[in-house]
């Protein structure tokens, strides 16, 4: 039990420390002296929850405007078990994840090779640059009518939208990754007897991995965030659709629950990707 208490103290930054930071005289302005402040993270979450409960108890606003936490939790269990319009919460989440992963997967499948091509060939770069730079700033929402006309109301349309959201990010980051290799490394490889393809595979592509991975992290986040827009394309399932549908009936408790779930899942996805990055690309940031 003592061990656990000690670990919690360490985590919150309350443990006894005599490290370099304590000995510094200049802390204000030194970026490396700013610790994570986990204690304050915990406190702020608790404060938000407490305020939430109090506001609802005191009925400062009607429950419609801001549902109390009990309602949100109750709805969470209800939909997790009984479902919402024919599917449980888990099934909605799964469907949404499937769409996001498919769109993201396609974005990577096409975006990474094209980005790499743009980094290596002036022909590829010149041809694709204007097209990508023109479509990139347009919000995915604007494509919905075209997508419905072209692809109908099935999953393909939603996946296409998510693909469009992630594609440009993967292209840009892949290209940057390719360009980030130092010419010395390339020269070194050729002087060691590598041919063009070996240089591409063993040096250029590996060197590009950190940037590609960063792009993937950003793209996944964007894709998840575009989910609600995607599920406006005539859906009947998915957690984004659930939020849209519930809002139409003014079920703010379900809306808020859905929003919180989406936020938590998005955060978890990012954490997962950061973990994968640490495992697969341990050299990132070193040297």
């Amino acid at each position: 039990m003592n061990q656990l208490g000690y670990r919690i103290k360490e985590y919150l930054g309350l443990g006894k420390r005599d490290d370099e930071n304590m000995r510094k005289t200049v802390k204000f302005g030194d970026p490396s002296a700013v610790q994570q402040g986990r204690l304050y993270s915990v406190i702020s979450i608790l404060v938000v929850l407490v305020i939430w409960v109090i506001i609802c108890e005191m009925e400062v606003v009607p429950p419609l405007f801001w549902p109390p936490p009990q309602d949100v939790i109750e709805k969470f269990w209800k939909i997790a078990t009984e479902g919402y319009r024919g599917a449980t919460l888990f099934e909605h989440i799964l469907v949404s994840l499937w769409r996001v992963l498919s769109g993201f997967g396609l974005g990577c499948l096409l975006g990474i090779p094209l980005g790499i091509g743009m980094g290596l060939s002036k022909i590829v770069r010149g041809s694709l640059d204007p097209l990508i730079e023109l479509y990139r700033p347009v919000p995915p929402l604007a494509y919905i009518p075209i997508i419905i006309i072209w692809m109908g109301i099935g999953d393909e349309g939603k996946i296409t939208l998510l693909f469009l959201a992630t594609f440009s990010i993967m292209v840009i980051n892949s290209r940057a990754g390719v360009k980030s290799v130092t010419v010395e490394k390339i020269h070194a490889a050729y002087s060691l007897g590598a041919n063009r393809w070996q240089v591409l595979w063993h040096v250029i592509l590996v060197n590009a991995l950190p940037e590609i991975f960063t792009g993937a992290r950003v793209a996944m986040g964007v894709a998840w965030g575009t989910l609600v827009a995607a599920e406006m394309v005539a859906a009947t399932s998915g957690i984004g659709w659930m939020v849209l549908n519930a809002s139409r009936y003014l079920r703010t408790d379900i809306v808020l629950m859905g929003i919180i779930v989406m936020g938590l899942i998005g955060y978890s996805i990012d954490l997962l990707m950061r973990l994968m990055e640490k495992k697969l690309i341990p050299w990132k940031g070193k040297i």
Partner: protein
Amino acid sequence: MAKQGVQHHLSVQNMGMTYRMEDGTEVQALEDINFDMYSGDLNVVVGPSGCGKTTLLNILAGFLIQTSGSVTLDGKKIEKPGAERGVVFQKGALFEWLSVYQNAEFGPRMLNKPLEERKQTVMEYLDLVDLAGFRDTPIYNLSGGMQQRVAIVRCLANDPSIMLMDEPLGALDALTREKMQSLILKLWKETGKMIFFITHSVEEAIYLATDLFVMSARPGRIMKRYKLDFCKRGLHEDSRKLKSDPEFIKIREEVLGLIWGMEEETGAHGR
């Protein structure tokens, strides 16, 4: 590993290098370069900043093509980089996603040498530079001196006909630098390789060279050549004693005088 028995010959004849700048003016980087090198030679080039030593190395390595004259290795024209001309860069240019061993075996691996043969060659060389215990360490965990040792092993593992070293010790602290100089002499003796070495440090140059070239400021020409044997003595004599030897100091002052003289003529940095 046996001392290399094969003799190689590098020949540079009437070589010149001219650049055309953006505004059309022509810059003569190198002019009238003539020399021959053989296996066992340790040629060192010193000269003022901007004299073209790196350009010369890049031409020998095959990263640049000269505008006039001929450069051949064993009779073959040098037109692109190749495994027979290994290069050691100042900042290593090692692959940070690979371990020490994986970096060192990169060349033989690209040339599809069999696994056992690669392992034996690489481990022998790593042992020679005292890095055998670090074979699986990621290179970003190594000090600068250790990284340069890996860079040298990586170059050696491919059994190149000539080793080209572009100020390989320039980024190291003074103490590490001296130790590395001794290491390079040791490797030179063990392998009998042809080594072409560029440095800013006159002392280093005189210590290492069998043949010392002093280059002039732009356009770079070989102003003076020395045949030296301090390196042979360096194999068994203490380096500090050797560098304080009156003969050593005499040559050092002479060369420094030459170089400083040139830098004065062309302004602080002959660029």
